[in-house]
């Protein structure tokens, strides 16, 4: 009996040896909508690079979307600007499908609209 318990303990020890890291990945979605003309977006991708894209929507209902996987605590960043004074922008960051940060602007061609934060820890 003692031998069984000792063997079990050694197995449990090995399991504990291997159970040190428990990183948790989240699905992050960047969304941009509400613009009636071309706008510029800047976002941070999974490699922590800042990517700049120009988007030309056909209508205000068009949605630009980008997905990535990221760990808890990582920075998520989405920033945009438009040049048309009649346009506007709604930016959202979703984590696992739920809105984490959002911001909007209308008729403001001077300021960057930025939504940003870090993925919350459970």
């Amino acid at each position, binding site marked *: 009996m003692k031998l069984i318990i*000792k063997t079990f*303990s050694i197995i449990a020890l090995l399991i*504990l040896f291997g159970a040190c890291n428990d990183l948790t990945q989240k699905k992050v979605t960047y969304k941009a909508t509400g613009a009636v003309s071309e706008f510029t977006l800047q976002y941070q991708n999974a490699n922590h690079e800042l990517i700049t894209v120009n988007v030309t929507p056909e209508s205000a209902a068009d949605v630009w979307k980008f997905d990535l996987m990221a760990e808890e*605590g990582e920075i998520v960043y989405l*920033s945009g600007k438009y040049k048309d004074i009649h346009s506007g922008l709604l930016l959202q960051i979703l984590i696992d499908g739920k809105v984490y940060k959002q911001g909007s602007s209308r008729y403001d061609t001077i300021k*960057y609209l930025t939504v940003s934060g*870090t993925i919350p820890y459970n």
Partner: protein
Amino acid sequence: MKTQGFLLSLICLFTGVQLLAQSGSISGKITDQENGQPISLVTVKNIQTGETTTSGKSGLFRLNAGEKLPLIIEFSHLGFDTLRVSVDKDKLSIPLTINMTEKQTQLSEVEVFSDLTKSQYPVLHVGITPLERTPQQDIGKFLRSEPNVGGIRKGALGIDPVIRGFKYSQLNVQLNGGTKIEGGCPNRMDPATAHVDINDLKNIAIYKGPYALKYGPAFGGVLRLITSEPEFYETYQTKVSMIVGGQTNYEGFKSRIRVSGGNELLAYSFSANWNKYGDYKAGNGDVMQGASNTSMIKGQIGVQPLKGQKFFLSYDKSQGRNVDFPTLPMDERSDDTEIYDFNYLGTGFGTGINFIQANVYKSDVHHIMDNKLRPFSDTVVAISDITATNTGGRIAINFNVGKSVIEAGSSYESITKDGNRFKTMIMQPNMPTFTEELWNNALINNLGLFAEYQATSSKIDWVASVRLDFNQANSDPMVRYAPTGDPVFLDADTKSNYTNFSFSGGMTWHINKFNKFGIALGKGVRSPDMTERYITLLPVGYDNYDYVGNPKLKPEENHEIEFDWGYQHSRWGNLQAGIFFSFVTNYISAVMVPPSEIKPQTKGVLGVKRFINIDKAYLTGFEFVYSTPEKLKWDASLTAAYTTGINPEATHYIIENGQVTGEETIKNDPLPEIPPLEATVSFNYHLMKRRLSPGIKVRVVAEQNQISKAYYETSTPGFTTVEFLLAYTYSKNLKVYGGISNLFNTNYYEHLNRRIVGSSAPYLEPGRMCYLNLIISL
């Protein structure tokens, strides 16, 4: 003598051993002079003939006398002073009564890591049982229950010990044979104790005062953390031990598995620990952040190629993840610590050398912190990434000089620290990032030489120690740049060299069988630590200022004296009482630097303070411990302790509307962060032949009104907590410890708990908590 001979003969008659010397032989009994107990396994040698024998279990021996007279008989034993006796012809027929004196250098049961010599200085040993019983997951938190030991609490773990009012690098914290660990965080969220799992410990030795100089520079005290070591067995054996503990409120668990074994030649042990805790509710129902997740793996191998020659190699890797520090601007995101350790213990060199001990180590801490759980991370995400290493070793030789014992040797440590803080402006276009250097490749080397002398007479034990330290430090230029790239602070003169001489002495007077009286005095010198020399504009103090280091600080000197009285009686119990007085010169404090000279760099601080030496400070206090005799069906104990510290002339900066508007000198300002008067009463009742022991512990802590005005300290209300304890030994394989701490759900906080960052709210201690620990040994 005649009476003793008669009694001895009578005893021999009853035991059936014929002791009376016959023609051609000599016999007798060997006893311990101190307690009269028989000593077995004493080597008895007839010097003339060379013939030897050993004493039996009752201390009895018989040896051929030979023809040459007078006989010279030598009695030797590992634990006792060697004795030679001359026996004349007319005494041959009388059984000898030999009283041997215990050697000062008594090898303890636990070799290698534990104290190898009996300490003549005041020392408090915490054994394995209280460590197994405790629900605490942190060494610093556990130590707060010892008299005159407090802990500065900033978060879930890493409670920084305070002994008799001394803290931080005023204390020498080390592991086993002298291994030291340098924490990475400038705010000391990871002091040395934070890198050791409490479940791994089997003993803690607390040397209060600047006396135990052989363990390194000892300024305010030495804290030795002793872990289990692999054991050698005559025949191959495997042992398994486990600890599993859980609790309510501060919900979480602790677990440990250790597999060890070996034979005469080899010994090994492998262990793994995993502890995980969540937030907790205080007595008033408030939820306090206190989550932590730590794990550790450790492997040790021992070799004993010759009897008495032991070599140990060990590797220890510990991890901390997401540890909350709600009183600091950052939390611990990850901590990865590796410790490489080599130990050697050599014994059996003959009568001259008692042992040789050597230790070589390297500890490597990689510490990452961030502010992601703080409100200000909405605009600036700050991440600090620091590596700290401590490499060193110690060698000591313990030998006899006449009836005295000397231990001499050398120790060395080299501390390096480097790291950066990365600030990302997440609400700005292009998300700009700034990098600030935190430690600028700082380096401190310390080489020490030490010697300790111990002598014992029938009434008085003497001890004296000396230590010489050569301390050298440097760093890259201390610099801080503004976001524009312009330097706001620069100090390129970072080199410093010190030679520090420390000494201590003490005596214990054994007044009679029950009473002893001790005096210890010493001067302990410590060089400034890395923070005091090289911190560059970070808010690392108790007060709300950015701090800047001073490479030209002088070493701090503690002159301490204490008097102890001990009373030990099998009927009335044990009592230990002592008072101490400490006079510190070149006390390291800080003064404000005008904003015209250095501008603060942390948002919301009141200004910049620079570390300086002040002339002097005083600390004084007492400790009192009483425990009832163990033979009773119940036991009780009472401890009480108090320390107060005074800065004779402190500077207080007057603040109005968040600005420093002036200063005033305060006479006799209390030193900050000193725990108040407290007393603990414990009572345990033993049932089922001591297998079941319910108990109760009441801790009464007085209000702390001795507060530093210069550091804007606030008073702390007193409190009383009650803990219900239960210990059950089911078998030699299973022990169960449980209890309910803070039984009446008292809402309280310790004086040394820091305030929640960005507020004046105290970091409250847990409310009522039920816990259960299972200790399994196979």
